[in-house]
């Protein structure tokens, strides 16, 4: 199982609190929205977390003013298995 930080882009308003709490995980784009550092594909929406970042991520989830963040516990998908409807 891996913990993922899920970003609900429809709620995110680019306030930037998460990028301050998780500077090693998230940078900001031109408009202030979080960008997962060094990630490509859907890992930019469901960002895999290291154990060391989990506590800060939990805090970001609680403090996000737009309630746009959540944590997911999931087994990482196999690369050859694409998911429908995502």
């Amino acid at each position: 199982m891996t913990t993922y930080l899920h970003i609900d882009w429809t709620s995110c308003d680019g306030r930037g609190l998460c990028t301050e709490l998780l500077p090693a995980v998230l940078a900001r784009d031109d408009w202030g929205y979080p960008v997962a550092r060094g990630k490509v594909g859907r890992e930019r929406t469901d960002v895999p977390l290291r154990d060391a970042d989990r506590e800060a991520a939990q805090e970001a989830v609680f403090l996000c003013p737009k309630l746009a963040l959540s944590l997911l516990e999931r087994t990482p998908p196999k690369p050859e298995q694409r998911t429908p409807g995502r």
Partner: protein
Amino acid sequence: MSPDIHPQAAGDIYPQAARSVHGDGTQTAHPPAHPNNIGQDVIRQDSSRREPRLLAAGPDAGWEQHLDTFGHWDPQAAGPGLLEALAAAGLTGRGGAAFETWRKASAAAGSGRKGLFPARPVVIANGAEGEPLSFKDRTLLARAPHLVIDGLLAMAAALGGAGMYVYAQAASLPRIQQALTERPGARKIRVVEAPETFISGESSAVVNMIANGIAVPMDQRRRLSESGLNGRPTVVVNVETLAQVALIARYGAQWFRQAGTSTDTGTRLVSVSGPAPVRDVVLEVPGGAQLSAVLQEAGMDPASLSAVLVGGYHGRWVRPAAHVLSPVGPPDGTARPGAGVIHALDLQICGVQATARIVTYLAGGSARQCGPCMFGLPAMASVLNRIAGGEINSRLIFELDRLGRMVSSRGACRHPEGTTGLVSSALEVFAADFRAHLSGYCAGPGGVAA
């Protein structure tokens, strides 16, 4: 699956000659091919099957023509074996993503069985077709609605009596409603109107529209196959895919595989459009068809075209020569059919300007929910329009690339990366035109290629 129809009898169910259906509703009949005639017309043999499958019942097939062509058949008989047949047939979705249909359906079936109070799944026939260059789904709904309904009933039966919806734009609704009233067993199917927006057919937008009346994509913490419409496991299936399901359920996986290749089985409908005076036409082509042969079938000379947009606005520009139309295969030499759009650009049109127009449209087609898309796509459109308008600044290309990488995969749906993919193909295929623009010439009709 009905065991009394032998796959070998497939030829008998196609009494009519193959037809091309034009965008204006007229059609051209092709002479039926003789099986021994191979060699006389090699390219045409490769390009498309002589006998139609999906449109075999003829123009605007009502219930009677449908039964005359395909025979009496009870969709309930499909049962759980249907998903196995779909897996054996190798059917992939015809709406764009080309995901294996049996996997999608199985995921919903599996989720539905979990838990103390298993949720009844839902199947939605998606005919929204927001792509401006696509018309094959509305053509199918107008001409063979009963095949789509057959597929929907069979899929719902296979998922243990799932709820059923048809989702399509206003123009398609009267024909669907008429078809639902003239046949037995279709009373439980509900019809929902899709707004005419680019994004309205995205699967989570489909669910959102039916549930809440808002056709914009939803954040998906859980997959639709686990929790979709009203929390039920939901399968959103393109209408052509369902029509193919109906044929596979009737005639079997082996019959389906008689067309296409081993990795791209069966046939698909494509909406082909091009420069005037070529008429817009819907063709049924086998998997792995040669793109140049499909263009010829539609009345175009591939040598007189500068590029072809394959897959729609979220697709890619390719050179017409030596491409095979298939969702699988090496990136050079394979063009992914996506939503089945094939749009040819003649040598007189500047590819940079054509791409700028499309990206401007896509930027306007954003659901305006997700920041990276809402701000990123207009920024990309703006840079493209500056290049197309003749601004001499070589850094604009790098800016386009940077913005593309910035927006990709950051949104509730795939609108950002679909748009980025189109732009990156334009940079590749129209590289000479981009260079010319950034050196201060080209621009306007005529392009460098002319």
